[in-house]
């Protein structure tokens, strides 16, 4: 990723939620980069810290109780964490935009969709109200909704169309960087296919860099270039799509793949990951996945595994690789 233009550069980010009598360690020592025109899939289960990471990029982590303990986030050449509220307002929507998970709640019910898209244009571009509204109508058309519907209210749209309106708002000012937090989770499969197709087209047309947050490895396979797998606030494996899917290294990633029903092999038994995610207020001293891991050894319980390079683009945090010749069961066939 060295010779490409890096749009997002997060280094050693740590975010904690400090509550009265406990601290939730939501994101721990997280580093990732996204290059121009690339889509990174951020994968993990509930509570893995995906959404907190996204909110940190927009400086929207609720404070209190959220505290950014350390690290840096750069979008283009701007250091996000050092910016004031006013400076940040200029960046949101213009440089970085976000598509939230639930289109039903992220639109304002008392304004027409045209007005809501125009609002974002007005904030960032020096245009008149009429021009902004005209731009809004064009954006609607771009996401596949007829122009004349700009004067309608959110309740007149179906779920899939609302999500397209949300995408239109996010794209209103051609952001350099887009964060999509589970953009299709609330949608039906056939509608999801339409929205994913739209996002793919936009990526090709405008070269927008993207972080796609999801728990669905099927969606990742569909539109991502790179994948980062999160577990208990840490990225446990990171690599290109091909590396993570076909040359899986981390036992947790392997567990995720094994617990998915495969449409081609219906008689194989599912292999769930035993146990549960650790309590984020009391993370173990060693590897957080150790209690559920089938390759665990004494060293895993002692201290955090460091990121290890498997290839220049592929890193994994797992102590088992200290043993020469270690292989997990899945994925060596690729």
């Amino acid at each position, binding site marked *: 990723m060295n010779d490409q233009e890096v749009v997002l550069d997060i280094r050693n980010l740590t975010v904690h939620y400090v509550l009265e009598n406990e601290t939730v360690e939501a994101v721990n020592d997280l580093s990732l980069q996204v290059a121009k025109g690339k889509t990174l899939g951020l994968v993990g*289960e*509930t509570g893995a810290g995906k959404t907190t990471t996204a909110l940190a990029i927009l400086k929207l982590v609720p404070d209190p109780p959220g505290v950014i303990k350390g690290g840096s986030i750069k979008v283009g050449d701007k250091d996000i964490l050092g910016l004031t509220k006013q400076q940040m307002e200029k960046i949101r929507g213009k440089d970085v935009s976000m598509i939230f998970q639930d289109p039903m709640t992220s639109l304002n019910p008392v304004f027409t969709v045209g007005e809501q898209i125009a609002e974002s244009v007005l904030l960032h571009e020096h245009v008149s109200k009429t021009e902004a509204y005209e731009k809004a109508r064009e954006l609607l058309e771009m996401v596949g909704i007829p122009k004349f519907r700009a004067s309608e209210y959110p309740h007149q749209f*179906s*779920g*899939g*169309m609302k999500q397209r309106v949300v995408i239109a708002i996010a794209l209103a000012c051609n952001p350099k960087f887009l964060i999509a937090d589970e953009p299709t989770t609330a949608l*039906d*499969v*056939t*509608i*999801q*296919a*339409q929205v*994913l*197709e739209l996002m793919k087209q936009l990526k090709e047309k405008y070269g927008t860099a993207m972080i796609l947050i999801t*728990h*669905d*490895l*099927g*969606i*990742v*396979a*569909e539109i991502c270039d790179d994948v980062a797998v999160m577990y208990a606030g840490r990225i446990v494996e990171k690599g290109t*799509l*091909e590396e993570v*899917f*076909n040359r899986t290294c981390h036992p947790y990633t392997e*567990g*995720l*793949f*094994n*617990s*998915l*029903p*495969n*449409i081609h092999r*219906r008689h194989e*038994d*599912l*292999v*769930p*990951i*035993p146990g*549960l*995610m650790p309590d984020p207020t009391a993370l173990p001293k060693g590897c957080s996945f150790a209690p559920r891991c089938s390759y665990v050894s004494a060293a895993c319980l002692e201290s955090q595994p460091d990121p290890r390079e498997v290839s220049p683009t592929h890193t994994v945090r797992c102590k088992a690789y200290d043993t020469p010749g270690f292989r997990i069961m899945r994925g060596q066939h690729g």
Partner: protein
Amino acid sequence: MDDTILEVRNLKKYFKTGRGMLHAVDDVNFSVARGKTLGIVGESGCGKTTTGRCLLRLVEPTSGQILFEGTDIRKLGRREMRKKLREMQIIFQDPFSSLDPRKTVLQTIREPIVTNRLISGEAAIEDRVLQLMETVGLAERLINTYPHELDGGRRQRIGIARALAINPKFIVCDEPISALDVSIQAQILNLLKSLQRKMGLTYVFITHDLSVVNYFCDEVAVMYLGQIVEKAPTELLFSNPLHPYTKALLSAIPLPELGPRTGRILLKGEIASPIDPPDACRFAKRCAYAIDRCNSSTPELRDLGPGHSVACHLV
């Protein structure tokens, strides 16, 4: 079908709304063999949940017959129906809202045992609760915890234990895993499967997730706007889908693997309104193959040979 436990004939459920009659379930027919699993698949609003609730009369059907072991349960009186419900149970989608937050695990699971007077004596009841907890994989130490202390997977296990408490023969599983994380989903699916093997349970499994259906069900019915558009043994449905909607649905599943994607069918347009639908194929507006006849008459569900039926004018 060899040993049919449940047969549904011409099931209809209409809801009155301000704008007209909403046809949630419109003339649905199917049967389920003992010890097997029928999957009902469809997108939101297709009537799959309403169908599931009608089977237990949690929602009173507008018309139709529901034959459970030969008895039309719609003809049963209140008391007889209650008795029947000992054999028929349901597991709900959302383990966060389907449990009483003020009841402990013990209180939740013992409730159906006590209400139905299955066992008497507090010690015997507690033994039974512990036995059920073991069956569904809940640790004994959790017996006095409240739902808010437990995660989604464990809550769903409580829901399953409660459904099993009265030894049912038949369980409607309404999206039992969609609120859970992937690694936990597999745990619950495996549990339901092993319970079926051990206790000879029959399931109607309602879901929107086709890859789960493929793994879990013996037969599948695909619903669209209140009607079954295609029904077939699972393997046949996945290898040879005939209805255009089923084809689109199957092609829309994002697969967690790399490689070329073969022919995704992107549907245009939005789902039609279920309120006072006209006499036409309800999928016609989104269908790439629609002809004039599709807009003027409703296709019947026709049997095309071993267990495979389709409702489409063009097949």
